[in-house]
């Protein structure tokens, strides 16, 4: 929602300077009840089966959320209800979207606040019945505007999702054609390479230059094949063949399949007892993509480490490198489809990796790191 749209909604419900003044006047009367209003709000959430599930962080998270709600309440009453207000409250809305708070609960939770504020309006010494009526009206107006802001964040998320899906559908159609068109010439190059190799062996040639270029062509052909595979995997929604996967073996296989360039040293330090629930081939693809991505950040060579940690119900797998790290301004964007910072990058690898993790009920995130980049895959642990 733009500040102009919010302004037009203000006009629509008739919320203006008088309403804002009535809320400011109400604030000192609400303040003594603030803690009680907020406790009531979170008590209701705690006892509601649908709402309590979205708060997974325990008492610490609740304490933090209570702080945010207190600040929110102060801003609602004190204003100013301007562009900065809109931005800060939309951010709260986006948190609701991210934690998947159902819209109906967002709506009804607002009713708790409304009832509590009405109660304060009834009991406060506001001077006259007219002031009381004004205050009640302003509370309703500002809370309805608040709902409009919150609802808009849900719409925003839906639009983003639809746009991403449309983009994927287009890529899907294109890639099926591309795959066929490119895999044939690629197959020809690869099979010619095979025939050359046989010929070289037959002639008993042992030549460094020949060998080096043969290997280089082979590597590049495999690189192309990987890009095509990533593209196709992104385009089709492959069902997950769930099984128990040995994390250490998975990491070792992925390290081998990633074919890290010379000068890049990959190490796996994973407890052999660790397992996750998932599709082995797809998870290997995730790690291969993360390893390749890390290797691309190390043009002059370097180290990549794969670590794993069991934190029930999750297994966290980390791929870290000692490269230059990821600039703060692009941290939010690295998982976006088609986003890349590399001249030869496609913007497919990390987007696909994240999609596979999410399809597994897990996450892929960029962790903060003092040196290099640290990417973390969190997957449901095997039982």
């Amino acid at each position: 929602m733009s500040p102009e749209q919010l302004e037009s909604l203000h006009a629509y419900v008739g919320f203006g300077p008088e309403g804002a003044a009535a809320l400011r006047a109400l604030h000192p009367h609400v303040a003594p009840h603030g803690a009680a209003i907020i406790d009531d709000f979170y008590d209701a959430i705690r006892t509601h089966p649908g709402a309590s599930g979205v708060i997974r962080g325990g008492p610490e998270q609740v304490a933090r959320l209570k702080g945010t709600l207190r600040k929110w309440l102060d801003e609602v009453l004190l204003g100013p209800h301007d562009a900065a207000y809109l931005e800060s409250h939309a951010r709260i809305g986006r948190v609701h979207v991210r934690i998947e708070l159902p819209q109906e609960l967002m709506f009804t939770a607002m009713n708790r606040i409304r009832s509590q504020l009405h109660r304060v309006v009834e009991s406060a010494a506001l001077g006259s019945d007219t002031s009381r009526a004004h205050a009640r009206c302003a509370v309703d107006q500002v809370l309805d505007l608040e709902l409009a802001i919150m609802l808009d964040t849900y719409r925003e998320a839906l639009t983003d999702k639809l746009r991403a899906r449309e983009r994927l559908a287009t890529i899907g159609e294109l890639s099926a054609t591309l795959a066929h068109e490119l895999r044939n010439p690629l197959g020809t190059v690869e099979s010619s390479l095979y025939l050359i190799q046989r010929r070289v062996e037959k002639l008993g040639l042992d030549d460094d230059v020949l060998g080096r270029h043969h290997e280089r062509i082979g590597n590049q052909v495999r690189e192309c094949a990987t890009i095509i595979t990533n593209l196709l995997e992104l385009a089709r929604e492959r069902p997950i063949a769930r099984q128990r996967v040995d994390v250490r073996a998975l990491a070792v296989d992925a390290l081998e399949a990633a074919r890290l360039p010379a000068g890049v040293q990959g190490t796996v330090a994973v407890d052999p007892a660790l397992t996750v629930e998932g599709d082995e081939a797809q998870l290997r693809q995730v790690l291969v993509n993360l390893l390749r991505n890390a290797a691309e950040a190390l043009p002059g060579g370097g180290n990549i480490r794969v670590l794993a940690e069991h934190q029930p119900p999750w297994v966290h797998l980390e791929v870290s490198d000692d490269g230059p790290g990821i600039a703060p301004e692009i941290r939010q964007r690295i998982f976006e489809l088609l986003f890349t910072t590399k001249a030869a990058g496609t913007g497919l690898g990390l987007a696909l990796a994240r999609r596979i993790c999410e399809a597994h009920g897990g996450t892929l995130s960029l962790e903060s790191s003092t040196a290099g980049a640290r990417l973390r895959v969190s997957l449901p642990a095997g039982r």
Partner: protein
Amino acid sequence: MGTALRLLLVEDNDALAQNLSEILEAEQFSVHRVATAEAGLAAAETAEFAGVVTDVRLPGASGLDLLAGLRARGSALPCVVLSAFADEGTVARAEALGAIDVLAKPVNLPRLFQVVQGFGARAGGEPGDAARSEPCPPRRR
């Protein structure tokens, strides 16, 4: 073994078809090369083959149509399908038509050799029996 096993190769990409022929010939197979499913079906009717190696996407009828055509004529000729886009639907259809395997392109050559060597085992019965034998159970890649 005596004479080389005769394979029918159906592939419309000429360069790839030539390479596959050369590679298979180097492995002691004899290869008859055609570029369409229609030509493949005609060839299978007039000559004896130990098996078929076919691309899926071809101009006109597809490699899977070729398989269906063979089965409709009562032929159980062993087949291996090469596909640039081996999605679940293609794999399932090929397997239902008795294909021994579906190999994604670029083709894993050792796997291809293994499969076509298997044609020889199947064709080892009485002369002319290969085209009438039971289709072998499909195998996953």
